[in-house]
């Protein structure tokens, strides 16, 4: 696969007070393969927004190179950058529709900007509005739409000029869960049906596990972890990543949570990881039957990440002492990458 976006050791600093410098993005290198979805997560102030704006050169990097579709934006003048921006759509947290234009006027605006004749712009705008399911709202004004519809118009406007890349700046952060879903489904269609590469920034891991192929975690201007989404969720390494992953999936009980669990479940507790490559969970029911061990689910946190299950189940085992011992030993024997944790009690 070819890289449609390439950042090479990109830095962005802003002049601060008294001659000091503020570093927003500190030496980031990233590649995004054509047709994939990259999610950039991090706490506020980590440099996500700046990074996104470096991709279409709304912010010009202090150092490093930015390549979009093989073109080096760093080498272009402002006029050249404007041309590149027309091939990169952008969606915003607060949508930023023009209130002085109708829905159709908003979607047609980037086309008119690119020199498309009025009738052709109108035809294309209606076509994109049909794709987002809002063709019947073409004559409406932005304030006559719901929040989710407004963001769908925002997506339509970004898609009007048939860009290769779509940048999403917290596109769902201001929406309620229902409309978030609506916009995420649309973005997924943008990726799968139109083959458009998406870079999105978010602080919601639910967005990442629903939509992204690749995730980059940012902290203090740097990318501290970067990889395939399932891998990062299954084996987070950096402390910041762990915080984000924990917030998305019910974490295996530890410390106080485990103590509380023990209070309610006096039997032996065993935590079995559920991952796409750990057969522990798959063999569970067979092993339980073979060793005549019964169980109660004490805790479970399993979610879907990129169409595969991920999480863990904590079981309270019941049965003869010897049977339970044999069962735990058998479970350990089938483990591969992820070990079942026996919470001896």
């Amino acid at each position, binding site marked *: 696969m070819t890289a449609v976006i390439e950042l090479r050791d990109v830095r962005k600093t802003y002049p601060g007070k008294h001659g000091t410098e503020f570093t927003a993005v500190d030496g980031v290198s990233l590649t995004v393969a054509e047709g994939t979805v990259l999610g950039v997560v991090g706490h506020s102030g980590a440099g996500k927004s700046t990074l996104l704006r470096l991709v279409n050169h*709304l912010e010009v990097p202090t150092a490093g190179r930015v390549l979009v579709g093989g073109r080096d934006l760093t080498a272009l003048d402002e006029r050249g950058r*404007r041309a590149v921006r027309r091939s990169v759509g952008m969606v915003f947290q607060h949508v930023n*529709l*023009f209130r*002085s234009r109708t829905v159709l006027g908003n979607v047609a*605006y980037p086309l008119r900007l690119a020199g498309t004749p009025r009738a052709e712009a109108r035809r294309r705008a209606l076509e994109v509005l049909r794709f987002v399911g809002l063709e019947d709202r073409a004559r409406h004004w932005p304030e006559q739409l719901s929040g989710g519809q407004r963001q769908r118009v925002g997506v339509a*406007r970004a898609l009007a000029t048939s860009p290769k890349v779509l940048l999403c700046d917290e596109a769902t952060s201001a929406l309620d869960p229902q409309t978030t879903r609506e916009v995420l489904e649309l973005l997924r269609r943008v990726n799968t049906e139109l083959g458009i590469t998406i870079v999105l920034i978010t602080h919601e891991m639910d967005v990442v596990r629903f939509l992204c192929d690749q995730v980059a975690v940012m902290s203090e201007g740097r990318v501290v972890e970067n990889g395939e989404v399932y891998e990062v969720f299954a084996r987070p390494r950096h402390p910041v990543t762990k915080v984000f992953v924990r917030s998305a999936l019910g974490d295996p009980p530890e410390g106080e949570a485990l103590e509380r669990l023990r209070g309610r479940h006096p039997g032996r507790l065993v935590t079995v990881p559920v991952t796409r490559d750990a057969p522990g969970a798959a063999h569970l029911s067979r092993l339980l039957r073979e060793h005549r061990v019964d169980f109660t689910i004490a805790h479970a946190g399993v979610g879907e990440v990129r169409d595969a299950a991920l999480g863990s189940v904590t079981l309270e085992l019941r049965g003869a002492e010897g049977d339970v011992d044999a069962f735990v030993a058998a479970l350990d024997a089938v483990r591969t990458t992820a070990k079942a944790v026996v919470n001896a009690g």
Partner: protein
Amino acid sequence: MQADWSTFWPKVVDATGETVYMVLVTLALSAVLGMAVGLTLYATRKGGVLPNRLVFAVLNTLVNVVRPVPFVIAIVALSPVTRGVVGTMIGTDAAVFPMVVVATFGVARIVETNLLSVESGVIEAARSMGAGPLRILLTVLVPEALGPLVLGFTFMLVALIDFSAVAGTVGGGGVGNLAMTYGYLRFDTSVMVVAVAVLIALVQLAQLLGNALARKVLRR
């Protein structure tokens, strides 16, 4: 001495016509010039779409120097220039010149302030689509700020009716001149009352039209 109303009414009509002429010509000229100055002020300020410290500093200082000068003083102070440009210092056309100068800087500030109230996100959206500074000014900022701009221009229109009356008292013609020569200098209260009534009616009309237009633009 009482005015002869049969010969006086045509004078009122003529004076009203002169006032409307002065106000509309001034509004048209100062709207165009003030818009240009206001857009330049907005664009060239720090962090604007086309930052330029020198241009901003010069225009900003000019606006700050002209605006606090009382209009009567401005007429007198500008009179040599007025004679140079218009050819005379008396009459409606001579009054229009200082009115345009003062109104231009008033309009410039109104335009600048209203453009500043446009959300920065909309500008960023236009930039992300590849719009240049001039396109952003004319196709995003002005349309987005049109409602408040119409109200600002209405405010200016009302101020111009006031200006025209002041100009009239120093030889500028129009309703102000009428009130001055017949009402004040000849102690005829009834003429004064008529002049004031005409001015009030004009102001009401201007405000009504402005509000209606703004409502249409703002869709409420």
